[in-house]
C-alpha cells in the first residue's frame, strides 16, 4: 500500500489487489472517518483518491490504520453486490465495422464472438479518462484482441469495442483505437441528469444483443 499527494489537497491511497467491492467499502470507511473534511472521493482500478478541505490535518498513519482494519474484516464483504445495468447493443454491420475482423482474428464466427461478449459479467472498475467512460473488468481471455495500429479519428458515441484485454463503450464521439464490434443507443453521459454518468464504479454491465436499424 502506498499513499501519495497528487494535489495540495488530494491524496491517492493505492491498494494493490483489492477488488472493487473492497475499495468501495474502504472509501465508505474514509467518508465516515473524515466526515465534512472529506470533500470528494472516488475509487479507481486499484486505488482510492481523497480530496480534503483541511489536508494539513491528515496523517498517513491514520489512513493506513483504516485500511488494515478493513483487511481484518474483509471476509464479510460480498464482492458480488452492485447494480446490474443492461446495455442493448446492435452488433456488426456498419455500427460494428470491426466485428468480422475480430472474428477472423480469433478463428471464430461472428455469432460466437457476440455470444461470448454477451455472456460476460463485467464490473465497472472506474469511470475515468473522459466523461462517463467506464473501465470494464471481465472480458473473456478468448476475446482479447489487439488495438488498431492507427486509431479511428471519429468514433460515434455509443460505440462498443474491444482493446487488448478490455472491453468498453465510448460515451462521446471521439477518436479511438479499439476494435468496434457494435453500438448502443444508451447515453452514458447525461449532463442534464442529477447523476450525469449512467454507470458508476462497482456496477455490473451486461451486454444484450438487439437487432434492427437505429431509429
Amino acid at each position, binding site marked *: 500500500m502506498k499513499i501519495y499527494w497528487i494535489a*495540495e489537497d488530494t491524496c491517492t491511497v493505492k491498494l494493490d489487489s483489492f477488488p472493487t467491492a473492497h475499495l468501495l467499502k474502504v472509501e465508505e470507511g474514509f467518508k465516515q472517518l473524515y466526515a465534512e473534511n472529506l470533500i470528494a472521493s472516488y475509487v479507481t482500478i486499484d486505488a482510492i483518491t481523497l480530496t480534503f478541505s483541511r489536508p494539513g490535518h491528515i496523517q498517513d498513519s491514520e489512513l493506513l490504520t483504516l485500511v488494515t482494519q478493513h483487511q481484518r474484516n474483509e471476509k464479510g464483504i460480498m464482492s458480488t453486490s452492485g447494480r446490474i445495468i443492461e446495455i442493448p447493443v446492435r452488433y456488426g454491420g456498419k455500427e460494428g465495422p470491426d466485428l468480422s475482423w475480430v472474428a477472423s482474428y480469433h478463428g471464430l464466427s461472428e455469432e460466437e464472438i457476440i455470444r461470448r461478449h454477451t455472456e460476460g459479467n463485467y464490473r465497472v472498475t472506474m469511470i475515468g479518462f473522459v466523461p462517463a467512460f467506464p473501465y470494464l473488468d471481465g472480458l473473456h481471455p478468448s476475446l482479447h484482441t489487439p488495438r488498431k495500429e492507427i486509431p479511428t479519428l471519429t468514433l460515434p458515441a455509443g460505440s462498443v469495442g474491444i482493446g487488448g484485454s478490455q472491453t468498453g463503450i465510448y460515451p462521446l464521439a471521439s477518436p479511438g483505437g479499439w476494435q468496434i464490434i457494435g453500438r448502443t443507443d444508451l447515453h452514458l453521459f447525461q449532463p442534464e441528469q442529477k447523476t450525469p454518468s449512467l454507470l458508476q464504479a462497482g456496477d455490473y454491465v451486461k451486454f444484450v444483443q438487439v437487432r434492427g436499424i437505429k431509429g
Partner: protein
Amino acid sequence: MIEVIRPGTFTTLQDHGRRGYHHLGVSPGGAMDQVSFEMATLLVGNSLQTAALEITFAGAELFFHESAVIALAGADLGALLEERPVSTGKRIYVPAGATIRFAQQRAGCRVYLAVEGGFEIPRVMGSESTLLIAGVGGGYGRPLQKGDTLAFRQTRSTPEQANWFIDTHSHWSSSRIRFWKGPEWASFSDKSHHHIHSSTYHLSREMNRMGYRLKGPHLETTSRSEMISEAVTVGTIQVPPGGAPIILMADGQTTGGYPRIGQVAQVDLPILAQKRPGDELYFELISLDEARQLQQIQRLWRNEVRAAINWKLRRGGTS
C-alpha cells in the same frame, strides 16, 4: 448583448470550474488562469460561478449591442475599445454600438473579459464553463464562432469612468514552475532527475486547455512497466514513452497511465496558463509542505485584493 464579429484563435466561456465530478470522468475545467479570472470577475462585482470570456491569443473582435460595464484581466492582447487602448485590471464602461478588439500579442496568452451581471447562459452540472469534450456548457458547447451572440443578464445605461486599476500581470510574469515529486519520481533515471532540475524547457505548439507538451531534454524511466491508470489532476507532469513531458491543464483527462515525475504547485498554474508556444520554462523542486504554504500565502493575497476591490466598489466604483 454582444455579438462575435471575429472569434479570434480560441474563445470560450469559463468560470471557477466544475467541481465534484472527477469520479465521473469530468475534469474541473474552468478558467486556466484562475487568479486573473477572479480579478476580472470581482472588478465587475460578479460571483466566481459567473462565466467570463477566456480569450486566447489576439484576434477576437466583439460588438456591443447594448452598453455594459466590463473588466479585462490577464494577458495584454492589445485591447482596443473603439480603436482606443484600454488597460487590464480596470472597470470599463462600453457604450452600445461600440466594438472591442484584441489587436496584438503583447504579454501572456489568455485574457478574461467579465461583464457586470454575467452572460445569459444555462448552468450545466453546476457550472457555466464550456465542457469542450462533451460539447456542453458555455452557451454554445464549443469555442465561439462568428455571429454568435451572448445576452447580458443585466444592462447598464449610466456611464462611469473609473480612475483606479489593479495589477493583473505580476502573478504570472515568471518562468519558474515549482513542483513536488510525483508518485513515480523514483522510477525515473538520475539523468532525468537532473534534467528536470537544471534544464530549460519550452512550450511546444501542442498546447491547449487539456495539456501542454514540452520541448527539452527527454525524460525516461529506468524500467518499462505497464502502469494501471489512476487519478491525475491539473498540474500533473506525466511522461509518455516518447520522453517529452506533458503537463495536464484545466480540461485534462481525469485518469492516466503514464509515469508522473512531478506535480506543479497550484500557485504556479497561472504562469503556465499565460505561456505561449516557444516560451521558456524552468522547474524548481519544492516539497508538498512548501506548496501548501505558497497556496496559503496566495490565498491571503487574493483576499486582500478582493477586500480592496470590494471597498472601492462600495464607494461607488469609480474613484
